[in-house]
């Protein structure tokens, strides 16, 4: 059964959500002054001062983070649409991928809730509470890597299972390798909970900067491929 043009157009919007989420997360982080993130070695007082400073700008930035975070869901739908074309009926990898994307969206929103709470009335809270809330937001935000890795792994599994001849493949094999690499490299995030400073801490060179580059880079790579994959289908359906 041919897919209606309106559905393909909606799918196209979902693809663009991939770029939008990267931009929103990037702008949100910078605007909220979260690059670098507050140091895990900070005292409760320092954390309180951190969120009290430019509190309104922080709130705006964190709201952008939560909007960007919600877009993991529609982008996951765009990816699932392609994985279903590869897999056909059943499509286990497509479901796993979408489920993982949903978890990433949900948890990102939860972390931004916590950050909004931190920025809500920093002056009225005891430093201990600020410290605990800050840990609760940042440790899993940077340190929990499994939903993202699961999403990338599902994409890799589907691409490697594509038995079509090279010219007719739905998604390029290199994206499968890049996805496998993203999932594998994410394991480094396991080191984040062990440190309050140094390269693997949640504000460290590897724990934060390398991890963020790998994570967002993967979304950009998938976005670029989906943009090309879905373009001829929309044009083809419209004519």
């Amino acid at each position, binding site marked *: 059964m041919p897919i209606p043009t309106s559905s393909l157009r909606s799918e196209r919007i979902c693809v663009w959500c991939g770029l939008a989420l990267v931009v929103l997360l990037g702008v949100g982080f910078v605007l909220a002054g979260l690059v670098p993130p507050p140091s895990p070695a900070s005292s409760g007082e320092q954390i309180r001062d951190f969120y009290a400073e430019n509190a309104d700008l922080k709130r705006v930035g964190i709201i952008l983070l939560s909007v960007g975070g919600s877009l993991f869901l529609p982008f996951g739908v765009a990816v699932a649409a392609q994985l279903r074309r590869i897999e056909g009926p059943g499509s286990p990898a497509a479901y796993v991928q979408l489920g993982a994307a949903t978890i990433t969206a949900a948890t990102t929103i939860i972390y931004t809730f916590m950050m909004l709470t931190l920025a809500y009335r920093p002056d009225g809270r005891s430093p201990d509470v600020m410290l605990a809330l800050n840990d609760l937001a940042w440790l899993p935000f940077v340190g929990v890597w499994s939903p993202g890795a699961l999403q990338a792994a599902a994409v890799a599994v589907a691409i490697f299972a594509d038995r079509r001849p*090279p010219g007719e493949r739905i998604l390029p094999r290199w994206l499968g*390798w890049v996805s496998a690499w993203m999932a594998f490299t994410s394991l480094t995030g396991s080191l984040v909970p062990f440190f309050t400073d140094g390269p693997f801490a949640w504000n460290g060179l*590897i724990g934060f900067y390398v991890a963020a580059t790998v994570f967002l880079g993967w979304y950009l790579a998938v976005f670029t491929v989906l943009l090309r994959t879905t373009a001829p289908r929309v044009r083809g359906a419209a004519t």
Partner: protein
Amino acid sequence: MSTATESRQAERRIPGEAGLWAFILLDLVVFTVFFVTVLHYRGEAPAAFAAGQAELHGGLAVINTLFLVTGSLVVVRAVEAARSGAVLAARRCLTAAIATGCGFLAVKGLEYAFLLSEGYSIHDGTFYLCYFAFTGVHLVHVVVATAVLLFMRRALRAGSSPAPRLPLLEGGAAYWHMVDLLWLILFPLLYLSA
């Protein structure tokens, strides 16, 4: 596969498949960041690095280096054997390579056990941070590379032509060589340099 694609592939001669090299190059980039991190911390605390290196069990690391290099050698022989259609010889070489991978894992486990029982952990300063974290990440790579070798050996069945499996064999071999190469940089950096 069409003959046109085949001849195009013959012209380009990339071992394995092109996409795998994206994986390998990206992994090398990340490890470059790791190596620069080690150099950075060594520059900050040369004395602590020298003291830390003196406590490591260099002999075990030398054995492990021999394991990986020997592994690389037999993996090359395995691919050569498969190319000439000698399935059994290829399987024997892969078995030997798998043994070197397992040997590396066992010796590394022993090394960690010694250090931990001597009271060292990842929290004892930047030298031990670098040592445990980066050898640990490399160890995970050896686990994957050894699993890939097992997969390669399973793909080679006695009595059937190994030709369709050559891209898999070449790709798996390339990955093993990368893991070997990373160790050949990590080993002097952590055990010898100060």
